[in-house]
């Protein structure tokens, strides 16, 4: 009996010894300027969005910097972010919030709440603009906040499923991406009054917009799959690349990209003379067109399935994000503007966007 008790005690001690093994990671602080900030969406419903920092020229990807600096997770689905006046505004789609942090240190500053399905963010002239879908059946809106006090100042009703937005020349250009359904318009909002001044019909489900060297607006329209009652795909609405004259608000070019592929992203070269588009769910390749003689090419500049991409403005390098799935590490691949592979890094789950600080 005594032996049994001794044996039991020994095992309990051993069990506790095992239980106390392992230490916490050391906290490290770093400056996050002069590098790329990669937004990792995380998996929907898992609240595991994260930020990766990669200094220009560095071989090291610094993952999970928001968590490490602030001791808390960002939230669920990091859809988009923007850097403005030393702050980064991060849109957490399924958390219905925007997290604000210093873009240099990533120390948390504020959480903007009260949003429903927020998507993209842009900032200009002391205001923060956030597009949101709203709940099912609701019209999309642009929610306006003061960049200093973070107070909500206006709600601007736009089209269905408001997505990407662009602030230029006192106007807010909003792509009405269709949300749960369909839309095919871009709206122009007067930044001073918040009134919609123009509605431009483009292709189906416009997602993102950029401004080229001539000041014209380019829109990537994803198109859509058409389903029957059994959810079988029975057709497609084509994807398009559309150029809008910024002054006249007229569509100058409307180029069909594909009848079956639905690219979702667009960016411009460092000189803003070449427009790049492609990437998104199940889309192969990043393509480019000249802004002066736009023709949809047959072959991509970069071959591969990328969940998102962005162009580094200072040198034109193309940062392509690979999401092998929504559970494993993603990958950042950097290419030259001509499409030559330069570097690659292991990043967080489902990387989608790169910002340049």
């Amino acid at each position, binding site marked *: 009996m005594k032996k049994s008790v001794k044996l*039991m005690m020994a095992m309990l001690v051993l069990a506790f010894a095992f239980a106390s093994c392992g230490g916490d990671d050391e906290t490290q602080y770093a400056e996050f300027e002069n590098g790329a900030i990669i937004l990792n969406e995380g998996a929907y419903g898992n609240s595991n969005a994260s930020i990766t920092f990669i200094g220009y020229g560095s071989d090291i990807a610094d993952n999970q910097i928001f968590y490490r600096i602030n001791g*808390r997770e960002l939230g669920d689905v990091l859809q988009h972010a923007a850097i403005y006046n030393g702050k980064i505004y991060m849109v957490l789609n399924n958390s219905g919030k925007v997290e604000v942090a210093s873009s240099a240190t990533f120390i948390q500053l504020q959480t903007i709440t009260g*949003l429903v399905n927020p998507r993209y963010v842009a900032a200009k002239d002391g205001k923060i603009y956030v597009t949101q879908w709203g709940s099912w059946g609701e019209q999309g809106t642009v929610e306006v906040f003061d960049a200093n006090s973070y107070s909500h100042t206006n709600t601007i009703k736009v089209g269905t499923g408001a997505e990407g937005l662009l602030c230029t020349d006192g106007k807010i250009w909003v792509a009405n991406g269709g949300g749960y359904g369909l839309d095919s318009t871009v709206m122009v909002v007067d930044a001073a009054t918040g009134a919609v001044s123009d509605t431009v019909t483009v292709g189906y489900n416009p997602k993102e917009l950029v401004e080229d060297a001539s000041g014209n607006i380019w829109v990537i329209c994803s198109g859509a799959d058409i389903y029957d009652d059994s959810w079988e795909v029975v057709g497609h609405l084509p994807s398009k690349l559309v150029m809008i004259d910024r002054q006249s608000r007229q569509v100058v070019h409307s180029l069909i990209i594909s009848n079956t592929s639905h690219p979702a992203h667009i960016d411009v070269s460092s000189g803003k003379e070449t427009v790049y588009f492609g990437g998104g769910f199940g889309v192969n390749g990043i393509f480019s067109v000249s802004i002066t003689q736009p023709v949809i090419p047959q072959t991509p500049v970069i071959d591969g399935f990328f969940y998102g991409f962005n162009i580094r403005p200072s040198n034109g390098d193309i940062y392509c994000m690979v999401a092998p799935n929504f*559970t494993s590490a993603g990958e950042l691949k950097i290419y030259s503007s001509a499409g030559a592979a330069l570097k690659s890094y292991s990043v967080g789950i489902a990387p989608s966007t790169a910002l340049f600080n």
Partner: protein
Amino acid sequence: MHLKRVCSIVFLQLVLVGYLCAQMSLSDTIRMDEVKVYGNLRESHSIGATIYKMDSVKLKIFQNRSAAELLAMGSVNLKSYGVGGLSSLTMRGGNSSQTIVVWNGVNIQNPMNGGANLSLFPVNMFSSIRLQYGGSGTIYGSGAISGILILNSNALFSQPNGGELSLSYGSGNTRSLSSQVKYGDKSRAISVKVFGQLADNDFEFRNIYKIGSPKERITHAESKQLGILTDVNMRLHEKLFWSFSGWGQLGDKNLQPIMSSTQPSYANQVDRSLALVSNLSFSPSKRILFNLKNAASLGAIDYSDKGVNIFTNNSYASILTELESKVEVLNNGEVSMGINHTLETASSDDYVGSAKRNRVSGYASLRKPLFRSRFLSVLSIRGELVDGDFKPVIYSVGAEWLPTKKLIFKMNASKNYRIPTLNDLYWASTTYTEGNPNLEPESGWGGDVGFQVKSISSDRAINVSNSLFYSNIERWIVWLSIPTVSDSKWKPFNMSKGESWGWESQVDWSLRVNSLTIRVEGFYTFTHSVFSEQPGSRAQPMIYTPTHRFSGSLNLQYEKYGLGYYHGFTGKRYRDFQSQLPAFNLANLFISYKFNLLGKVVTAGLSVNNLWNQDYQLIAGYAMPLRSYMFTINIDFTR
């Protein structure tokens, strides 16, 4: 449709009962042991396996709570989407669908997703809760790659007539009622158990997704539950015994939003389930026993979320017919054999048409003691035909060697598989998701080796056991979305493999001194588990599998007073490939006082849950309550 079939089966059994009664001689003196009905036939073939049995005191203390809350304090790893939310258990690094849930000998997992929501299993419905670790449950069926949760009713004849009423009120405006009544004699008995609960579940928690981790209250988590279970035992003849169990459960629950969300939540789920088991046992001689079992497990799950316009209705049914026999052979040996047909059907707004699957299986198990019962061995094999396709034969072998009365060496090894769920196969192709009809069954093998030291005397007992285990699962089914291919919908794939090994250590010590009874229990698990998504890819840690897990309890009973302290330590767990949830200690304290009131024994109890006020999550992002309280009063009407 299913109800008609069940009624027909019950009717046929009654006809058969009448026929057999007429055929038997009244001079036979062999009396059926009704205890066999509730699974002992199978339990005696679990030689060499690691088994953990919840003690009766624990079951009593948690009687007004769910099995999820009980198991969270136990020896397994529990995953839960918040208080009262979908809860499932995992063992030895497997996922929840690799642990089967058996009630009175019947697998009651939902065939649509392979799960069983333990938050809808009131503890008072079960007389016995056991956990069998590893894949050695061949005799219970395929699919138990990681282990089995075994829930049983008690045989009624040995129970006193009477009843019990228990009322609880606690934090989160939780109001619970449980009651049970048993009436009968030595040949006929019926028991009815009822459970009802209304809860706001607005417990305090610390929101770690917000700046400063403020204290908040859980919102949109209100729940209603109602359950009724009846057991009927009838000794129809000295050689013929019939038992019936019926269990209906209703749950209506608002689903609490993830902690990081600041958006309003509208999600709601209504669960309805009905399980029926009829078992007719016939023992023509001391050495032979036949069981004819008919069972049905029916369920409906309606999910709605007006915020995103999702309204889905799902229903399922598993209809089982089984004939099994136990025959004594080879000088104290025992052969158990059975043949089983299970029809699984499901209907869902997310399916194209209805899913239907026929499973026919046969098993044989030989249990043989050797060397004057100093060596016990078992060999079990099972073959299965699923919709006409032969699946690989599964088997388990186990052995126990008793060199002394106090020492047992154990081992077992097994090969198992799990066929895909109906969701895996039949989910319709929608915008974002799609089933995969080409999935292969998961295949697993593993084993244990260990020893047990036990010493029992009139006033004290000690039981210490240790085992090392290894488990390997190939073709693991995982739902993934792969944006790098043109068909990038969420769909299930047979990924490469999962592998885990570890150590389980169990201690149980009790002592009785005059009116004082002391019981100390501890269970420690070390688990190292990794998962490879693709052949040759880097192994990742298995998510939600803690390396270290410890549960322990101290129970003191002194005359009218009772005290129980339950402590669970869960180590860090990966919630994805790069992030870990922190370790936590979860402790519950119970005090009780027993007194007489109007001739009835009344027990008043107070429980403090999460005594150390720990922040913890069982699934990342889903808040669990800080310290909370519950007051219970229990009235015993037993004669």
